[in-house]
């Protein structure tokens, strides 16, 4: 039976072209880019070209890119880096209730160190209220961290307007764009983003490499001290094959792929809502990540849906209580106003450039009896 992988927001396979491009950097071009000799110079040049490519992708002119180990590290570096570096200005940070754990747990860590955190509410589609943001910014606010595309429910925030507000108020704006990078346009010449988190493995690049793009004027405290790599902001020998792969991966998703993913996304949303009465769409219909579909099914638990589909070789994800490392109900689902008792039936379907309408049809065909079976089994109505 063919496997239909629908968990691309978790991670993607490495694209063949990306893989081929990386290979020589494991063996032939293995040198340390810091080394003075010819071999080192060659690697150094290629790393710098990769850096330029990625900066160009987002039209970054007054920025630098720091290579990291991925989105989590970039978010940590952005938030702790600003918090420690600008603590004389203040210790107030604004974020939202629907951030990725690598943001939420980082600000919680800072909270214990005496920083004050405000968590913005979101509406039932997951959008923040710009008025509320404006009201929450204080004299001692040093950072606003708001994710671009939500990994669970797909909501795309208006980063242009958020950036504008932050600029007017003289506060740094950080956005976690791991899910949106290369799937929706980010243009740093038009959008005021001071710190931008990106990574490779959500765009058919390798795992273990990401980046933080920051405006040149920003002074960050590093997380890792050592040999002074990456503008003294991230010491440690560079992950050269990863960086080369990252640079190649930004070419993988084409405009046509985005159109196709959007079509498949909307097909799944429309047809599941039509065929399954207990299905509710999470997140908005418009202003949504092109590859994210997220449902909440009444009366049932998401993990059971996931496992039944898995038995049919279809891989999806869930935001439900029992699914991962904690037993708490999903914080994003709670933030958009779903009562905890109704919040367990979340199923996330994220599509890739390979996904076609036939896959979507198969998914829906298999999903209908699963939901029916589990609903019949449920004592909750």
């Amino acid at each position, binding site marked *: 039976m063919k*496997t239909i992988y629908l968990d691309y927001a978790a991670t993607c396979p490495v694209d063949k072209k990306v893989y081929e491009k990386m290979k020589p950097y494991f063996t032939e071009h293995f040198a340390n880019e810091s080394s003075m000799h010819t071999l080192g110079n060659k690697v150094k040049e290629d790393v710098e070209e990769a850096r330029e490519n990625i900066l160009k992708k987002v039209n970054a002119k007054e920025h630098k890119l720091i290579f990291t180990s991925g989105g989590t590290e970039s978010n940590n570096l952005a938030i702790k880096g600003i918090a420690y570096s600008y603590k004389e200005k203040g210790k107030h940070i604004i974020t939202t209730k629907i951030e990725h754990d690598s943001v939420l747990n980082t600000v919680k860590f800072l909270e214990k160190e005496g920083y004050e955190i405000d968590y913005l509410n979101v509406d039932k589609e997951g959008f923040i209220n710009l008025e509320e943001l404006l009201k929450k910014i204080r004299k001692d606010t040093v950072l606003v961290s708001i994710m671009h595309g939500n990994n669970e429910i797909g909501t795309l925030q208006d980063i242009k307007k958020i950036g504008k507000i932050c600029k007017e108020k003289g506060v740094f704006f950080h956005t976690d764009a791991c899910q949106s990078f290369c799937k929706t346009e980010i243009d740093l010449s038009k959008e005021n983003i001071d710190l931008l988190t990106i990574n490779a493995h959500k765009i058919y690049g390798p795992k273990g490499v990401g980046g933080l793009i920051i405006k040149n004027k920003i002074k960050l405290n590093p997380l890792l001290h050592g040999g002074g790599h990456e503008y003294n902001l991230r010491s440690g020998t560079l992950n050269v094959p990863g960086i080369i792969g990252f640079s190649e991966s930004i070419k993988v998703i084409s405009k046509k792929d985005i159109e196709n993913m959007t079509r498949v996304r909307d097909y799944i949303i429309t047809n599941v809502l039509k065929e399954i009465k207990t299905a509710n769409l999470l997140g908005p219909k418009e202003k949504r990540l092109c590859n994210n579909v997220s449902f909440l099914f009444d009366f049932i*638990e998401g993990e059971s849906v996931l496992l039944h589909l898995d038995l049919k070789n279809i891989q999806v994800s869930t935001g*439900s209580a029992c699914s991962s490392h904690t*037993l708490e109900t999903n914080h994003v689902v709670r933030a958009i106003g779903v009562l905890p008792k109704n919040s367990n039936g979340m199923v996330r379907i994220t599509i890739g450039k390979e996904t076609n309408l036939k896959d979507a049809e198969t998914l829906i065909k298999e999903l209908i009896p699963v939901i029916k079976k589990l609903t019949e*089994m449920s*004592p909750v109505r």
Partner: protein
Amino acid sequence: MENTKYSKEVLKHFKNPKNMGSLKNPDGVGKLGNPACGDVMKVEIKITKDIIKDIKFQTMGCAAAIATSSMITEIVKGKTIKEALKITNKDVAEKLGGLPPIKMHCSNLAADTLHKAIEDYLSKKNKKD
């Protein structure tokens, strides 16, 4: 491909749960769980001469919750009330070849739910007597 986060036995019961549904005029009904936690279980029993003649369950929950529900119905069918009351949640989990640690608390409530159904039967019986 086999999912390795659960035992074979859990997946077997999850795939084809035994005794799922409800009974006509049950002698005892037990319901337990916490919707916020994601697991709710309901057990209905038919008792003749202190023996569990029939048992059905309905469960909202993960694979662990469904498998433990199915397993308990298999274990206690034909057993006396006294025997059934001795069975613990832990016994059920062991019969299933174990559960992931995080599931032991929330999703492993089948024996407790059965005991509730038996209590319900006994209290009704006492009222009649």
